[in-house]
């Protein structure tokens, strides 16, 4: 038998053409979508799976979808039965207990046929701004998943190229923001169609046999590179534990434990010892926990490693059923991402002694949702809005943590103020960095940010966030960043809110978010005094804090460091 020959240039071309197909799916989805969450904040992902349902190429704007989406799609297709699908069909699914995550993330999956032969699947996931349930934007504290919105098992939304209007009306009637949501569904359909066209063009060019040969090689290539990367990681057992600050009903912290074992077998992530699941919105499905581990592993590898099935097979996760890291039906899941992202901080904390130059100190590590809705008096429609806010990033061994940026699995853009105010009845009053919110260190954590929303009408507002008890931790004598504050300002009076709560607002009320700063790295007494001076001149830290936390005395008149006083303060003066 002749060994099939892989030609290097053709390999690169097909590999990149497939990635490009996924990218074009993302562009079609983004550009034709209606909700700010999809079109601007880019809370979606697209991918191509081969006929064995292995992920091959993906356009991921959000790392959180990295592990979750690729688990959900094969499970959904298998549940529906690939034999029940034909050309032009697309199935819809968001079932958390069918490989999914929270209900807002709805996947649309379409088989791709080439001359009547199944060649794979195009699939896209979008975070829908509303899926019904107890509060606008479908975020809030509930006790069962049934209260969180519509649960969609795999169902055929598009049948031989035609949308099933009965089904579509049934889904839409559960949803508040009907116009935006139907626009986003259309965009998802457009995305899958675009992907299928590109895939067929690639096969036109290279033939089906070559196509399958190279698709397989693309996965094997990633497998080889991943194996080499895993072998490079330091062998050992690494542990950390931490908390989600409350669960939305009880004020008790939710304990999380992680054990990372790196040995000849590979890398295993074990969450045994984490708290039992709660009748509260902090439960992570297995897909979400898997996604956290996949992201952490990917971050410790070569930056240009292409991710596909050849990578995922190396992510081994042991998350005991019935814990907050692998919840069972009917636990609510909408806040599962809070648990997911906190696990990321803990994994990097666990690895810090072994990989001090590759990890970062504690980051924002919360989703920090701000969701609201109500009747828009201008249009008479029920509208919903959702965004997530950035915070300070953790410091690294040789650089400060950047200010006001998303962390880990989350990389959603901010909603432009002009776009938000043009489409929703709200006015943003301020959007700024918070002075002195950084975790001090030789390298400091990033600053958190403040965003204030004023509402001219009655509005239902939900905070679904965290970090209101403790800020992100520092590393190696680096200090903790500031904690978050969520406040309702009513008639000039400020009332602090829980990090997981829904409130009914009156006209004129203001909601203020002040997000956490990042943890520091190394002792702040070792920070370069000129770096402290620069922060003071920029108004990022106060003169008082420079003295108290960094031992640096600033002569503001001369805009310089008072070296004698600093020396005295730092060396026990």
């Amino acid at each position, binding site marked *: 038998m002749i060994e099939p020959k892989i030609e290097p*240039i053709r390999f690169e*071309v097909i590999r*990149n053409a497939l*990635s*490009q*197909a996924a990218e*074009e799916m993302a562009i*079609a989805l*983004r*550009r*034709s*979508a*209606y909700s*700010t969450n999809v079109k601007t904040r*880019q809370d979606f992902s697209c991918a191509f799976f081969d006929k064995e349902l292995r992920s091959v190429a993906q*356009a991921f*704007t959000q*790392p959180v979808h990295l592990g979750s989406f690729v688990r959900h799609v094969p499970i959904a297709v298998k549940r529906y039965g690939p034999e029940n699908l034909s050309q032009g069909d697309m199935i819809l699914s968001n079932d958390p207990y069918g490989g999914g995550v929270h209900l807002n993330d709805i996947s649309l999956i379409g088989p791709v046929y080439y001359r009547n032969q199944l060649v794979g699947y195009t699939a896209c996931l979008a975070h829908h701004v509303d899926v019904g349930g107890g509060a606008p934007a479908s975020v809030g504290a509930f006790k069962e998943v049934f209260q969180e919105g519509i649960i969609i098992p795999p169902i055929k939304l598009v049948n031989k190229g035609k949308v099933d209007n009965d089904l579509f009306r049934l889904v839409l009637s559960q949803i508040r923001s009907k116009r*935006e949501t139907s*626009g986003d569904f*259309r*965009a998802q359909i*457009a995305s899958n*169609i*675009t992907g299928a066209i*590109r895939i067929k063009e690639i096969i036109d060019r290279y033939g089906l046999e070559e196509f399958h040969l190279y698709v397989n090689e693309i996965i094997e290539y990633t497998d080889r590179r991943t194996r080499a990367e895993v072998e490079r990681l330091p062998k050992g057992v690494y542990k950390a534990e931490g908390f989600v600050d409350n669960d939305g009903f009880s004020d008790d912290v939710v304990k999380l434990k992680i054990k990372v074992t790196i040995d000849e077998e590979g890398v295993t992530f074990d969450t045994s010892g984490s708290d039992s699941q709660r009748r509260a919105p902090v439960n992570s499905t297995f897909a979400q926990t898997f996604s956290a581990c996949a992201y952490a592993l*990917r971050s410790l590898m070569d*930056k240009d490693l292409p991710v596909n099935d050849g990578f995922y097979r190396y992510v081994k996760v042991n998350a005991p059923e019935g814990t907050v890291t692998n919840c069972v039906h009917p636990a609510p899941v909408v806040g599962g991402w809070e648990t997911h992202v906190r696990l990321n901080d803990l994994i*990097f904390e666990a690895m810090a002694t072994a990989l001090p130059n*590759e*990890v*970062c100190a504690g980051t924002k590590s919360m989703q920090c949702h701000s969701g609201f809705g109500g009747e828009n008096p201008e249009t008479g429609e029920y509208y919903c809005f959702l965004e997530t*806010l*950035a915070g300070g990033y953790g410091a*690294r061994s040789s*650089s400060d943590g950047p*200010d*006001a*940026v*998303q962390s880990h699995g989350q*990389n*959603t*853009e*901010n909603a*432009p*103020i*002009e*776009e938000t*105010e*043009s489409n929703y009845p709200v*006015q943003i009053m*301020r*959007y*700024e*960095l918070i002075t002195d919110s950084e975790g001090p260190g030789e390298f400091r954590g990033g600053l958190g*940010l403040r965003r*204030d929303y004023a509402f001219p009408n009655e509005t239902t507002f939900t905070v679904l966030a965290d970090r209101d008890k403790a800020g992100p931790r520092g590393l190696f004598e680096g200090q903790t960043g500031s904690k978050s504050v969520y406040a309702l300002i009513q008639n000039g009076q400020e009332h602090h809110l829980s990090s997981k709560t829904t409130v009914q607002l009156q006209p004129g009320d203001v909601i203020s978010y002040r997000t956490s700063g990042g943890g520091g790295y190394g002792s702040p007494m070792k920070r370069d005094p000129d770096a402290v001076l620069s922060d003071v*001149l*920029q108004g*990022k830290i106060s003169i008082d804090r420079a003295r108290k936390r960094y031992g640096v005395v600033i002569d503001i008149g001369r805009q310089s460091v008072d070296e004698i006083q600093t020396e005295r303060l730092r060396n026990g003066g």
Partner: protein
Amino acid sequence: MTTAQESDHHESRYRIGVDIGGTFTDGTLVDSTTGRVTTSKVLSTPSNPASGFISAVKKLLSSASVDPSHIEHVVHATTVATNAIIEGKTARTAFVTTQGFRDMLEIARQIRPSLYDLQFEKPAPLVPRQLCFEVEERVNAKGEVVTPLDDHSLNQVVNQLASSDIEAVAICLLHSYRNPDHERRIGEAISEKLPNVIVSISSDVVPEFREYLRASTTVINSSVAPIVSAYLSSISQKLVSENVTSELLVMQSSGGVYPAQSASENPVFMVESGPAAGAVAAAALGSNLGQPNVISFDMGGTTAKASLIREGQPNITKDYSVGGAAQSGTGAFGGASGYPIRTPVVDLVEIGAGGGSIAWVDSGGALRVGPHSAGADPGPVCYGLGGTKPTITDANLVLGRLDPNYFAGGEMKLDIDSARESIRVNCANQLKISVEEAAHGIIEIANTAMVNALRLVSVQRGHDPRDFMLIGFGGAGPAHTVRLAEQAGIPKVLIPLGPGTASALGLLVTDVRMEGSATLIVRADQADLTQISREFQRLENLGRKAHKQAASASGAPVFERAIEMRYWGQSFELSIPAPNRSEIDQTWMQELTESFHNAHQTAYGFRANDEPIEIVNLRLTTVGKIARPQMLKLSITDTGVSIALKGTRPVYFSEESGKQGMIESKVYDRSLLPAGAVFSGPAIVEEPDCTTVVHPNWQATIDEFGNIIIQPKN
């Protein structure tokens, strides 16, 4: 093709293009009636680029013996703006915005430029936080004033600005695209108190919604404006003193040209001026040979640029970041590593690898090339101008690819011993290898980065490089192009005549184009047709006025109207050409909306007939056509190549075929190579401004335009 203009100015038939790169300033003079081209190349003068500019012009005029008064127009491409941004040497600029939003530039889009890099950095804002100021005022999304502009707070800011020693101010207030009144009043107040400070107003620069992108574009505009306007006025004066009084035009990032006056006011449209010229030149060269699909590779002293041209047109993008990392694919976050601008830009990938890029050994013992460049001053070690760090040019010299006695046509002697010594001390010794091996390593490392740039514009965009021809130019390009083609799998290479100055040719084969826009944001079914008509008329008047400055250089203004539309609720518009009807009436609107539905169907696979459509912007491009110069044709001769053979010399090659080391190679004088000549590698082709390396296993042919076409043997 006699026009009224030509009969008036019988002798005004020469056009000059000058392209200033990081290291060299290239000039091209074309006789637009005969197509005869004269070129010049002088060292750039980074401390005062105008002086290099005028030397290039003087050299052109004298070598072509043309009377300065016979110049039709001068077109200029300059990297003065982009260099200022990349090198952090922008003017000291302040930012003024609405109260509560001082950190708009710091927070930017709150995203990380790379998803899995825990060590990532956000680019530092172009305006430091202490120069960001807030004014008490607020306009809402409808353009209504919610909080009137507070005079006290305005005065306070103006006073702070006065004591901040600034050269420029960018003003971007919320919703100013709807209501520019407060921005204008703030601008006037600042100009009154600080008449020498350049003020850019976001509603003038890019009247589009989404505050951060508008603010970023405006900040870039203002922070380079003092540099650009001082520069352009200085070269205008110098031209006048050389008796060149014709129009000065400037290349824009989009590939069209505009008058110098417009460039001084809105320099953000020309930040990628030089690279655009190269892409336009490559498109013209390809089209001229009936090859509309080409990849352009332009390597100068400081950077290398690649762009892809399909169907004779470079790709244009409005999602562009200045100083951003090379984008992989159409990656959503590529832009987060630089400073976004919302002006049209030729889509290209630029990397820090040029003839002057410095080679060094890093702390881990790895040989690295760039991103630092020795530029023109001090330049490579072999220039003998004080450079001590080895560069790509030094490596090419050591490998025998450049002739120390025939650089810049022999005007400049290269010091090969110093180049060798520098590579030995800075690279070879640490790596414990020979000087030749180190020099070869430098070239191969640089080539790898450049091949990656070629892949980014082709393979990464889903195009097979084998379907394209690679056009190599720029002073340093042709020494590398064949090897790059070999590595990227490109089957055909073209090296134009005068490759060192080819991108200046791009300046002479494009039209005057000026963009104007008006934001409407109104549902199509509720739009006031007379308002649309009025706005287009207003934009035409503005365009006609701006065109006057370029009137002598181009034909009568032609207007291209387009309407940017989307389904009501979407955020991205499709640009729809206006229906070709004299009257803007109901039929016009019906045709327009039908075109939109169709365009949406083509772009995204569906149309939503029942959904309302929104008109976002009216766009009007004023075009002044410039006739293309003829390309001079050579007659094919059978004189053979021997008359062009200058001799042989050893050149270092290391090919996959196994040959390694110094191989005796033939050296040809390009000016003597006749059309129809055929020769094989290994060979070196020399001309005053450039050296072409033809690798073993490749064969070269000279075509009827004098281009070298190089293809694999057999």
